[in-house]
């Protein structure tokens, strides 16, 4: 049988409703299911049901494994970016600017500036996730979304449970490490946004030409 455009949409919708939320994974699965069905002679919906009864579990397992692989790949890319010249320059510049800032403000104010920067950047990442969950206007790609999910989860954890994160150190000598720690965290957030944009471009180029 020939699978029509509407039937392709039906397969895609079925997979999405079954929990395959990322478009890049669905494209491949939809093609696989459609190709299998094109070799059958019966009614599309009967053959589709029969196929899903036998293979749905495997497809969903494959979806989970693919998501994990995409997540690991995205995290590897993030670390690569953090250790790249650009990433190290961002961390170094932040570090230098923070020490320069100490000439114009006291340490408590600097901590406050860090807090604000951290908070605003986290809002950008969390907002991105919430936007994708609530609306389906933007396409959801596995690597990009998984990276945002992991980083926002970890950083929200640091924010909520890391009670010492924004506390100024008691010893003045500890300022160096405190500022370094804050700069690394801000760099991670900035590079997460940069990495997500890189991945997004890659997905769009691959799937949308």
């Amino acid at each position, binding site marked *: 049988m020939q699978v029509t455009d509407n039937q392709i949409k039906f397969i895609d919708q079925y997979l999405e409703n079954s929990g395959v939320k990322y478009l890049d994974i669905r*494209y491949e699965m939809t*093609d696989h299911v459609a190709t299998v069905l094109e070799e059958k002679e019966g009614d599309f919906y009967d053959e589709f049901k029969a196929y899903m009864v036998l293979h749905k579990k*495997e*497809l969903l397992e*494959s979806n989970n494994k*693919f998501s994990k*692989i995409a997540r690991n790949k995205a995290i590897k890319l993030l670390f690569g970016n953090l250790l790249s010249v650009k990433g190290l320059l961002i961390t170094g510049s932040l570090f230098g600017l923070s020490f320069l800032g100490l000439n114009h403000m006291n340490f408590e104010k600097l901590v406050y500036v860090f807090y604000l920067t951290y908070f605003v950047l986290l809002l950008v990442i969390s907002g991105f996730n919430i936007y994708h969950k609530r609306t389906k206007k933007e396409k959801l790609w596995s690597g990009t979304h998984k990276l945002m999910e992991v980083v926002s989860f970890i950083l929200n954890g640091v924010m909520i449970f890391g009670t010492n994160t924004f506390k100024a150190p008691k010893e003045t000598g500890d300022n160096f490490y405190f500022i370094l720690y804050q700069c690394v965290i801000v760099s991670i957030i900035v590079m997460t946004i940069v990495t997500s944009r890189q991945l997004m471009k890659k997905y769009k180029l691959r799937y949308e030409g």
Partner: protein
Amino acid sequence: MKNSQLYKGSLTTIIMKLLEENGRMYGYEITQKVKSITKGELNITEGALYPALHKLEGEGLLDVEVEKVGNRLRKYYKLTEDGQKETVNRLAELEEFIKNMQTLVNPKINPDLQF
């Protein structure tokens, strides 16, 4: 997959070997090719094939090309340069493994190992 435990460890090598011979292939094509070569004896399931393909892609051994075929997008896989080198290594390892297994299962075939 038939005798899944026995074939599991060789799945990525089978995929790489097929891609080495055929240039680029898509998922379903790989399953059908394996089925046809083994005369239906070996049936690679979706649950085994796609994670293996994505793992190889993640390791940089496979490259991906996406093309519109009819009314949908199709993802083709092909070996990267590293993938081509790795295929040679893995095939050599697999051949060595098969040779050793044959020796163990049927020791009389190899006179060198007889006491």
